[in-house]
């Protein structure tokens, strides 16, 4: 089984061993063991829900930092569309792009410009692959990982195109090589990311062998630095923006679908809603004419990313204001010469939830799980360290937990034991 590393990790001394994260995790990837939350490798899809919910801030996302610019001779920043929606009273994207350059980058290449090309390529792909309808958006790495671990039948519906950030990286490096004459590896491509899952997808790429991005910075880390720089460029920003409405809108739910110029699409956001849509799709509940499904793990879309700063709904309003006077699309594929936007490696089902290697053994285990579940109180209190009684039963059968880890079972056991002792002592 192909396990990939995760970006979400635990700061052990901050973890109190409470049940908040185990209950929130959409893939039941977390258990509390010895009073600390433990993430099961392979099951985590880097959605960031545990980072959001943890009251002790014990969950964090791995990422790179701006001092990594020292490693390269020439650097290009790739701002995510949602970055533009983090600031109050930003009237011109060029002000932001100029500020980004000033904090230590030689150039900027908007992910929203690449997104417009991905929209164009998506339209072509969807039109010529009716047998794969509805195609599922692959821009959110959490959605792709979720399909890979939970929805084996939907892997063939994944749109096999790289993300706008990856295409931006590819185009930015090519432009930088042409401009500077440097070797490709001497150029540092920095993605300014709204979420943890995009960090993971750079370290462990989806549909490609090696990512086009070198470093991933969190928007929340560079936000304060940018905030100080912005006022310097309000009067005379450099003309750097190359994207329009379609590209910028990728930062909010419905944006990707908007770029497809078709009504036969569905867009959903929030991890629970995403799962609901995928479940229904698996049961064939959608119309046969549905062409495309856009899914974003975060509420509101990428503006809801766990490494963003602004409230997602306020950010959405800012995005809508900002795009008002932009052209529909500014970046076109023919402006950028040769590029590759297709997946070059397979994205396959990863059966992380299987109980055993063969059906017979799996069924024996499942029968035992069903029996055990009936013996547990059914409160799903999480005190044993597993999110539900059912999950606890699974852990017992897998040999990674004991029945008495359930405090209710333990209480009964002790109660019975004390009765037995009382009875015994009476006989002495």
């Amino acid at each position, binding site marked *: 089984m192909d396990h990939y590393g995760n970006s979400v990790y635990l700061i052990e001394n901050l973890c109190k061993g409470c049940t908040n994260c185990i209950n929130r995790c959409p893939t039941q990837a977390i258990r509390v063991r010895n009073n600390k939350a433990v993430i099961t490798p392979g099951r985590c899809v880097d959605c960031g829900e545990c980072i959001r919910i943890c009251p002790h801030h014990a969950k964090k996302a791995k990422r790179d930092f701006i001092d990594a610019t020292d490693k390269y001779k020439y650097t290009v920043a790739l701002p995510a569309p949602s970055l533009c929606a983090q600031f109050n009273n930003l009237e011109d994207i060029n002000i932001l792009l100029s500020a980004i350059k000033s904090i230590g980058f030689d150039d900027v290449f908007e992910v929203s410009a690449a997104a417009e090309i991905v929209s164009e390529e998506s339209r072509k792909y969807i039109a010529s692959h009716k047998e794969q309808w509805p195609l599922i958006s692959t821009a959110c790495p959490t959605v792709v990982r979720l399909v890979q671990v*939970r929805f*084996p*039948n939907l892997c063939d519906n994944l749109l096999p195109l790289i993300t706008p950030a990856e295409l931006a990286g590819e185009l930015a490096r090519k432009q930088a090589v042409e401009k500077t004459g440097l070797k490709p590896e001497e150029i540092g491509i920095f993605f300014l990311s709204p979420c943890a899952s995009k960090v993971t997808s750079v370290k462990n790429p989806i549909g490609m062998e090696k990512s086009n991005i070198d470093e991933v910075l969190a928007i929340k880390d560079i936000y304060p630095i940018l905030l100080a720089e912005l006022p310097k460029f309000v009067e005379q920003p450099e003309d750097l923006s190359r994207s329009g409405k379609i590209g910028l809108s990728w930062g909010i739910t419905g944006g990707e679908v908007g770029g497809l110029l078709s009504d036969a699409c569905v867009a959903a956001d929030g991890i629970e809603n995403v799962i609901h849509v995928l*479940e*229904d799709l*698996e*049961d*064939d*509940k959608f119309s046969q004419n549905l062409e495309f499904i856009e899914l974003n793990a975060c509420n509101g879309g990428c503006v809801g990313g766990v490494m963003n700063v602004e409230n997602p709904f306020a950010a959405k309003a800012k995005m809508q204001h900002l795009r008002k006077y932009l052209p529909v699309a500014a970046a076109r594929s023919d402006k950028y010469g040769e590029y590759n936007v297709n997946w070059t490696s397979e994205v396959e*089902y990863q*059966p992380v*939830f*299987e*109980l*055993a*290697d*063969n*059906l*017979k053994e*799996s*069924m*024996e285990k*499942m*029968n035992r799980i069903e029996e055990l579940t009936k013996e547990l109180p059914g409160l799903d209190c999480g005190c044993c360290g597993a999110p539900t009684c059912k999950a606890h039963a699974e852990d017992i059968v897998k040999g990674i937990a004991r029945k008495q880890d359930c405090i209710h079972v333990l209480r009964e056991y002790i109660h019975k034991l004390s009765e037995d002792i009382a009875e015994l002592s009476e006989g002495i």
Partner: protein
Amino acid sequence: MADLMELNYVVSNEDFTRAGEASSDVKKKLKQLGVSPEAIRKVAIALYEGEINMIIHAYGGKIKVTISEDAITLILADKGPGIADVEKAMQAGYSTAPDKVRSLGFGAGMGLPNMKKNSDRMDIQTELGVGTTVTMVINL
């Protein structure tokens, strides 16, 4: 081959919001068992269609799923009105669903045809006024 696992569900009367509960649970279990994605897809679709049928036409019913090493058998039994003309009911697009149900987007006349399409063997035992039992087998 002896049956190695049996799952039982009760489909409640006319509650559309709960339609799909059984198929959803079965689907989850089959994934854990490591059943092939293709077989899971067939079971999920056939069972969901069956559940909807039971709610629309038969005021609910019972579902029994048995899993052996070489096949999954779905038995959907109800005490509904029975099917007057099975041959007609099997035709794509033929429907006797009431308007109330059609207004919810169901009752397109694809239920039984879809169930047949997604099973390797399907058998319908029905008697007017007594009920219907649909048995579907999906080979593994």
